[in-house]
């Protein structure tokens, strides 16, 4: 009898600090698997953002630079320009990338930096206690939208995976989810494609991964997982929005 499922070597064998049912852990693992598959671990430099994923270096067995909140794609630009042969990726939350980091992601994407960006959208600011994010769904109650997000006042949730496709520099953009075996298997595929794009020097690749935040949503892990597949997928459609190979 042999092992058919094992922990990827790029992922350290340690306990994470993530809450029960948080998808960050799953997304971490899928990225690690892709790194294993393309054998890039030894030449990878990851850029951690500020959010629940700030401990990137504790979980991935790779070199890591910690970026100020929202600036991961600018930091990654500096890293990649200085180390063009390294595999460089950022891992950013929705507050980090879609709010404070808006200018940095738009311009890194527009320059077509040869990096891979993993964008984890859980419709809230996790680490700081569940405030409204640019991705918070209309009507969703958070600690700073106690009456639910009001589109008239707060605007509609931003769809980053679609928005970025407008920029010439973007080679690949897709939105995935890991809430069900089916979505997860597709997420695997897209994440590997995003990694391959950089490995092949095809340019800026972007993965938006929908994620559950049971803690700040105030639900059980199972309810949160459920919500990802329903409410979230309704508004944030899964799919590949740009794929230079098909252009």
């Amino acid at each position, binding site marked *: 009898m042999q092992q058919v499922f094992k922990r990827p070597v790029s992922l350290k064998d340690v306990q994470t600090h993530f809450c029960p049912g948080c998808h960050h852990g799953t997304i971490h693992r899928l990225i690690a698997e892709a790194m294993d598959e393309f054998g890039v*671990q*030894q*030449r*990878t*430099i990851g*850029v*951690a953002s500020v959010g629940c994923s*700030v401990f990137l*270096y504790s979980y991935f*067995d*790779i*070199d*890591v*630079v*910690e*970026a*100020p909140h929202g*600036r991961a794609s*600018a*930091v*990654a*630009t*500096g*890293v*990649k*320009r*200085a*180390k063009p*042969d*390294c*595999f460089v990726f950022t891992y950013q939350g929705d507050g980090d990338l879609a709010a404070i980091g808006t*200018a*940095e992601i*738009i*311009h890194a994407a527009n*320059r077509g930096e040869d990096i891979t960006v993993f964008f984890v959208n859980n419709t809230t600011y996790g680490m700081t206690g569940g405030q409204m994010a640019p991705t918070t769904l209309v009507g969703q109650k958070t600690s700073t939208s106690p009456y639910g997000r009001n589109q008239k006042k707060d605007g509609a949730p931003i769809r980053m995976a679609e928005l970025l496709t407008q920029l010439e520099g973007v080679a690949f953009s897709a939105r995935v989810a890991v809430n069900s075996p089916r979505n997860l298997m597709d997420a695997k595929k897209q994440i590997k494609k995003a990694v391959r794009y950089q490995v092949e020097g095809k340019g800026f690749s972007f993965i938006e991964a929908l994620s559950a935040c049971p803690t700040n949503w105030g639900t059980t892990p199972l309810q949160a997982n459920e919500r990802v597949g329903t409410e979230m997928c309704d508004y944030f459609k899964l799919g590949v929005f740009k794929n230079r190979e098909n252009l």
Partner: protein
Amino acid sequence: MSKRLFVKGNEAVAIAAIEAGCRYYFGYPITPQSDIPEYLSRELPKLGGEFIQAESEIAAINMLLGASATGVRAMTSSSGPGISLKQEGISYMAGSELPGVIVDIARSGPGLGGIDASQADYFQAVKGGGHGGYHIVVLAPCSVQEMYDLTLLAFDLADIYRMPAMVLADSVIGQMKEPLVPHPRPETVLPPKDWAVRGKGGGEQRVVKSLFLGDGELEAHNWKLHAKYGVLKEKEGRWEEFQTSDAELLVTAFGSAARIAKTAIMMAREVGLKVGLLRPITLFPFPEKAYAALTVHCKKILDIELNTGQMIEDVRLSIARDAEVFFYGRPPGAGSLPTPEELFEQIKKHY
């Protein structure tokens, strides 16, 4: 006489950066420092380097953070509002113990203010405008030649002490053209950058970060940084003394103000007034010893700044307790640059 170039102070900075082996520049346009990016956008590509005009000063300082984290020599430059925007990034670099050179060709403020020569950003540069109570090396050139020499020094000190180093000047020094002799980069023994990220390549994992959560970790980290600042004060303080030996009035000023004051002092000497100049070249570390030593005998100090009084605090904290400090300041703005004649009047007044 060896070959003399005739260039702006800003260009001298750019020429020195290249001589220092800096091949990565990240910046955003702002007057009066734009000659630096303009020069480097021309030259770096020829040398296989990278010039990126960032989308903002914030992006620029963070690109610098990323590049420095890989161990290369890199820099940014800006002024006033742009330097304010970089404060968070500078704090992160200081916290992550990253080298990197930041050139500040200061302009007048607050706010949009104007573009005239200013020394009103002394506090921001020297006390740490960002959060967390860190310090960075701050060098204050007063000639085109020094813009070149101190930029070379900034890169070395940044690497040796693993902290950001700032070259602080203004439009007088940055826009002024003077002859420059571009000496080759001095031989300095630099510590290996065994902390730089590079892709493990089978080696140890390396992490560049400023987050320290373990019990006592962050405090220990802060004491470690504090200790470095102590060493800097011990070993790296630099200053110029001009006719101080017999001085009965000591003028102190840095950068552009010192440059103008020097002529005023010459005028004073011409009429027989015993006046000298103490010019700090390193603003951080502040050359406390020089002040303590000189004020053992000379008890009158005239501090001249292009602001309403900032360096004067460090002067007062450094001098002998019984010495007296006078202040003459011109906060910056159009038409507010003092003339040698004007400073000469002040010298006569306080002599």
